[in-house]
């Protein structure tokens, strides 16, 4: 804060107004100029270098009553995901496949722009992006969710709740969905006489034939990680906060999987055009981030065991 005030005090012919105003007022009235002053020194207002993402932490098993859950924090952005498994009858075209239903919610607690009854604009977009990304990447083999071919299969309801919205919502949501899927334990079930599937409790374990022997985990072929960047003039800002996202409009989200394939390159408009050089820079930064996130996820998985 002191550093910024000193910088503001330097004589600058074209921007005398800034030296007379308080920092907070300047930040609110001229947000773009405030940020550009920082970018010229290759730093951002919260002290991060341009290419550095915020501190990320994953906590598996946050919701004890769900079959799989994860709480993810990227800086202040907090996402809580829980997976609940229910039984459904599979469709006729694919009797061996289960189903995953992904939903993203932004409850009113997460941000001042969300009101009860008036959902945020970002919420259905992130929800659809999430479900498209996870289903088109073939990370999960739906055949693993089958119980009795043609009669019963698992429907996994994956609900992502945003508890605190501070930029990079899609990144945090994808990371928490992936972490919850890696933590998911499918319960052991048996079919009772009526043809309904019920969870095997220890007392009745002997009576029925278990459909799946013991609790198991889903195999994830290759894990997805994403990174959101902002393009502004010639700068690439990694992992924006909500303030940065609201000022600079050009966002790029890159989803890579651990085998290096590009799952999604999502750039919805924006005044800055993305040239090949910028695209390759963003992809290179994303690859580094994938390694970081992969090790964070592995560490948190080890802590659970």
């Amino acid at each position: 804060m002191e550093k910024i005030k000193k910088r503001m005090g330097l004589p600058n012919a074209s921007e005398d107004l800034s030296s007379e105003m308080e920092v907070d007022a300047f930040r609110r009235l001229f947000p773009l100029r405030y940020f550009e002053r920082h970018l010229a020194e290759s730093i951002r207002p919260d002290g991060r270098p341009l290419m550095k993402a915020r501190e990320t932490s994953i906590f598996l098993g946050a919701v004890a009553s769900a079959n799989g859950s994860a709480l993810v924090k990227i800086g202040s952005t907090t996402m809580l995901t829980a997976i609940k498994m229910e039984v459904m009858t599979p469709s006729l075209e694919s009797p061996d496949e289960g189903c995953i239903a992904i939903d993203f919610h932004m409850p009113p607690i997460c941000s001042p722009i969300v009101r009860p009854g008036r959902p945020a604009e970002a919420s259905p977009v992130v929800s659809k992006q999430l479900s498209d990304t996870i289903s088109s990447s073939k990370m999960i083999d739906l055949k693993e969710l089958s119980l009795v071919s043609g009669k019963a299969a698992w429907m996994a309801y994956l609900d992502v709740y945003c508890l605190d919205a501070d930029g990079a919502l899609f990144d945090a949501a994808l990371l928490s969905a992936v972490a919850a899927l890696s933590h998911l334990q499918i319960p052991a079930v048996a079919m009772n006489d009526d043809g309904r599937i019920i969870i095997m409790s220890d007392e009745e374990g002997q009576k029925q034939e278990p459909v799946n022997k013991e609790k198991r985990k889903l195999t994830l072929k290759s894990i997805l990680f994403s990174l959101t960047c902002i393009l502004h003039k010639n700068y690439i800002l990694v992992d924006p906060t909500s303030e940065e996202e609201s000022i600079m409009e050009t966002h790029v989200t890159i989803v890579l999987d651990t085998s290096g394939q590009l799952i999604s390159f999502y750039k919805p408009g924006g005044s800055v055009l993305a040239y090949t050089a910028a695209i390759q820079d963003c992809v290179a930064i994303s690859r580094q981030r994938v390694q970081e996130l992969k090790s964070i996820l592995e560490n948190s998985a080890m802590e659970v065991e």
Partner: protein
Amino acid sequence: MEINRPDGRTPNQLRPLACSRSVLHRAHGSASWAQGETKVLAAVYGPKAGTKKNENPEKASIEVIWKPKTGQIGKAERESEMILKKTLESICIRTIYPNTTTSIIVQVVHDDGALLPCAINAACAALVDAGIPLKHLAVAVCCSVTDSGGIILDPTKHEEENMKAFAYLVFPNAIVTVLPERSLQVSGESIAHGIITSVTQGAMSVDDYLHCLDRGRAASARLSEFLRKNIEPKPTSEASKAG
């Protein structure tokens, strides 16, 4: 490698394009755009006074309403609306009429693959028809990657479902532009090489994606030629439209 397409096109060939201007008489601007069987109708109303609460009143704002052919408006429509809104905001000159809203209504007439690029092209043509000031045109193509790694342009719905991955790409296009001469070349690439919007689905390698970009750029030149020819002002003596 030989890729056999059901309708006999080569991998780089686009479907027959059809565009008509001013199809709706009461809208300030309208256009219909068809690529093969996929047809989209776009109507533009505006600029109207006032902006919505969340928008910046110092700039003109754009509102997109996407009407699907059947069914209720769900998440997919909201996502398409957002992508269209952000794409069109980047081509409009927003500082000319601040504190106004321009509404663009997109009606899907038939969906046979590459729906979003078709809608973007239709919306761009409708904006030109309405006379909204634009920095440059936006031209959209769909490129898909086959399982063997080949690139196919403008797939039909049937082809889209069988592809490993596809990408919707939007490129800027300008012959004459308001931007100064210097900025037409950015780090050795001309301005037409940058992408405004990119939406991908499915897993592909990064090299495949860069190839898609190259093919898309080549196709955008053809598309923009067609667009310009079709939106030239017609030499008729029509009475000016109301509103």
